[in-house]
């Protein structure tokens, strides 16, 4: 693997549409569940161990060669909220576009043909990691990190939170990111042997409910 390529892919400025999504933070802020750095930390920890773990495992399994079509269906089954499924596919499509320009690969072209309107973002992320010459662990780290970095930067905009505090939240989560990435790779290996039923299904009901409410707002800053 190339550590340089990993940094390019993990960079929040990688132009794959993430900036328009809050990862549920906008709904949580409105509901009064995220009000500052401490509650942002709690929110991110919850997201990391639920949606983050599932995403990281999907990404790892995709790198390990599990059929993306099966992974995409499994991701659907693990995403009860239609709004979140739409957001995940949108982000998947945008990532696919950016990655096909940055790391051209026949596999990504095939995925784009199979899913012209986008596959779940973590599944695409796994194949992008392969195209970039990265491994399952790298993809798992990217997915796990994105699951918390998105809400953190959105909260800076939503609450005018001190950006240093938001970044400190992420830094303090680093040991847990390591843990989730490890678990995801392990689970991803099991998926290779046992099929997609071995994927974790750690759901976060408030994220799902919040996303549905959010999608119906007339005025919002973020797409999800």
């Amino acid at each position: 693997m190339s550590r340089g390529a990993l940094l390019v892919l993990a960079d929040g400025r990688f132009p794959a549409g993430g900036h328009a999504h809050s990862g549920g933070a906008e709904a949580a802020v409105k509901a009064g569940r995220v009000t500052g750095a401490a509650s942002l930390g709690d929110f991110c920890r919850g997201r990391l161990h639920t949606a983050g773990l599932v995403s990281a495992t999907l990404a790892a399994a995709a790198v390990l060669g599990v059929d993306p079509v099966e992974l995409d269906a499994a991701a659907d089954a693990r995403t009860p909220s239609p709004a979140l499924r739409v957001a995940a596919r949108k982000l998947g499509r945008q990532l696919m576009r950016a990655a096909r320009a940055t790391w051209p690969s026949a596999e990504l072209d095939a995925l784009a043909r199979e899913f012209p309107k986008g596959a779940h973002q973590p599944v695409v992320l796994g194949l992008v990691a392969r195209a970039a010459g990265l491994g399952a662990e790298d993809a798992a780290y990217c997915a796990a990190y994105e699951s918390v970095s998105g809400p953190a930067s959105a909260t800076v905009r939503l609450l005018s939170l001190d950006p240093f505090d938001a970044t400190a939240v992420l830094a303090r989560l680093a040991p847990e990111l390591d843990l989730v990435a490890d678990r995801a790779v392990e689970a991803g290996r099991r998926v290779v042997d046992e099929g997609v039923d071995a994927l974790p299904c750690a759901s976060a009901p408030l994220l799902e409910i919040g996303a549905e409410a959010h999608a119906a707002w007339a005025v919002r800053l973020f797409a999800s």
Partner: protein
Amino acid sequence: MHLDHTHDGPAAVSADAHRIDGTRRALRIGLGGPVGSGKTATVAALCRALRDELSLAVVTNDIYTREDAEFLLREAVLPPERIAAVETGACPHTAIRDDISANLEAVEDLEDEVGPLDLILVESGGDNLTATFSKGLVDAQIFVIDVAGGDDIPRKGGPGVTTADLLVVNKTDLAPYVGSDLGRMAADAKAQRAELPVVFQSLRTEAGVADVAAWVRAQLSAWAA
């Protein structure tokens, strides 16, 4: 021969002039400029002026609502399926410059669903004087300012005023009321832009959007050539 790998898959990548089926894609023109300067009003007027001679569509980038798209729908300047709204996550300039993926998707979907199209107008969510469109998203850009925003804006320059393919100074009808000196604005714009064109317009008068529409037609002829 053009052996670009990106033509193998279903989605063309950003600036490619051709769609995957080999046909030439629509010309894409961006409209940027500060909030309230008259971008949506100019888009609406352009649609009315051009819709009988061209196949066109509009993408709006609202900051936190779908207001621009809804205004265009309410005014019925185009059928609803020809108007798409992109959400920008509180950063309208990011969506037109640094991370254009959602906008590219919107233009592609419009071409897929209501195409073939000759022209797509992309309106940015009103922003500051530094917001410009990426060349990966649009082929040409119009920067819209107005006389009420202060007649020193052309003098101040900035990427929009200085480099846009067309600078539109809108709401000239208001100049007497806000004490803006149009002659000075024209001279300052000339100093900033050298040979690049500037149009002074008022959408409240008979001539309306005619000069901008003529400029768009010229861009289209050059694109089709």
